[in-house]
């Protein structure tokens, strides 16, 4: 296996002087090609900042990111991002098909017909055939998020970054989307880096789980997930491996690893989402 993503000593600080805020501190990890890696960390620890640095949307104040060997300076060509806020990320004035075709518009050597074909194909991967003519607001939240996943996949990115993609859909839809993502990933051998604050989700989805500490984010552990590639919402979640793994991740998150210097600044997010960190 070759290395897709290489992050070395990545740090990011917002602002400067008195108001400076270190969001990400000295992160180092790699993601192999064809892997689905999950990053789990408490709310507000700097997960989005990390993804924004990797995707080139912001320039990190320290360290470096390389994507199959090339140093990331601007947004790389073969990368796509799925944002948490699907309702704002889709363009409401474009139909579903036009939204999915959007990133293909300026792809060279792609005719109109081919573009359309690719969009339909991507929509069928996410189980949404035949809704191309609708506007996003005519779909449910789960369907909208599937459209934004289809839009990212239509570009056939080497690396797909996902920022808490299922955080704002209901539990049932979330299970469906998780299974869908795994089956698409297995079918296409895509490389995916997914960020979440949900421990169960990270273990259920990942081939690997990277655990982040509270702000500023550091890597506390890098755990391989010892589960079969075919996963099932009921049996997998009952299996001994799953239960012990999620217990381990929870302990790491709660203890914050070996980071005693962090004063408990009262993470409000912990109280709002007790179930995810329990």
């Amino acid at each position: 296996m070759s290395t897709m993503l290489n992050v070395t000593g990545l740090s990011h600080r917002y602002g400067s002087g008195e108001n400076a805020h270190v969001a990400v501190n000295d992160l180092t990890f790699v993601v192999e090609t064809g892997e689905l890696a999950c990053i789990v960390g408490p709310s507000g620890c700097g997960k989005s900042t990390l993804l924004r640095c990797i995707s080139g949307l912001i320039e990190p104040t320290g360290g470096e990111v390389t994507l199959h060997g090339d140093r990331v300076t601007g947004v790389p060509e073969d990368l796509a991002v799925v944002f948490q806020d699907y309702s704002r990320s889709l363009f409401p004035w474009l139909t579903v098909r036009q939204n999915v075709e959007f990133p293909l518009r300026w792809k060279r050597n792609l005719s109109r017909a081919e573009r359309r074909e690719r969009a339909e194909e991507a929509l069928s991967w996410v189980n949404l055939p035949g809704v191309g003519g609708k506007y996003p607001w005519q779909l449910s939240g789960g369907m909208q998020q599937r459209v934004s996943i289809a839009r990212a996949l239509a570009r056939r990115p080497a690396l797909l970054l996902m920022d808490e993609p299922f955080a704002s859909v209901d539990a049932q839809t979330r299970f469906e989307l998780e299974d869908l993502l795994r089956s698409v990933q297995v079918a296409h051998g895509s490389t995916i880096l997914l960020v979440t604050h949900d421990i169960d989700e990270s273990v259920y989805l990942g081939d690997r789980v990277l655990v982040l500490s509270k702000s500023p984010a550091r890597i506390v552990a890098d755990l391989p997930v010892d589960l079969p590639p075919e996963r099932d919402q009921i049996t997998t979640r009952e299996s001994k491996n799953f239960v012990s793994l999620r217990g381990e991740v929870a302990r790491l998150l709660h203890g914050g690893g070996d980071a005693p210097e962090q004063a408990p600044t009262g993470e409000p997010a912990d109280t709002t989402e007790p179930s995810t960190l329990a």
Partner: protein
Amino acid sequence: MSTVLGFLRRWSLFLGLVVLWELATRLANDPFFPPPTTILQKIGELWFSGPVSRLFLTDDVYVDILPSLGRVLGGWSIAVVLGVGLGTALGRSRTGMDYVGPLFAFMRAIPPPTLIPVFLVLLSIGTTMKLTTIVFGSVWPILLNTVDGVRSVNATQRDTARSFRTPQRYWITLVVLPAALPKIFAGLRLSLSIALILMVVSEMVGVTDGIGFELIFSQQRFDFPAMWSWIVLLGALGYGLNALLLAVERRMLGWQQTSGATTAKTSGA
């Protein structure tokens, strides 16, 4: 059937008032207030008594009405191009509005008809003066609403477009302008009615042609049915142009979830 009912609901009050007006004017028998039927007769005489070869339209239509319409639409179109173009550039620039904002607020506050004497001296009576007046008066709502609209693109949409390496051209045509369109249309409607007013006012100055000129001229001749005919024509023109613009708006903003929401809020610009 329901369309007939809808039509009746919308127009019955209007028609009732016209009938009332007819009765009142017949009773009063005041030469300054001719009954609507007389005005209608005059309208037929003035504009629709031409030869077959000219579609029954008289010279007035070709000499006065069409040039006036040309001025409104011409002036307004220039204002649209200027307003949307400049507004897009200013809305995208971080500091541009800081420099020109106060200047624009000041210029916009000047009632445009008061500038006619200035433009008269600068440009003398003619089409240029009239167009300048129309453009100057009607460009502000478009410009300021476009700036507002362009700024309404949200951060997630910006990040999404950036993460796909969207080229400038696609960014503006597929994201920025569509996002700004509801606001732009609110500005367009406002500026269209301003353009119509300024067309009439600018034509009332000096002896030339056009609807405004004919309006004043018929009043000076004490030809009150003719004067009222021109007034009715202005009302019909305003109504027709606005309806046309609304139809275009409905087509272009069809994607909006709550159609009608934007038509209700004519922004205060």
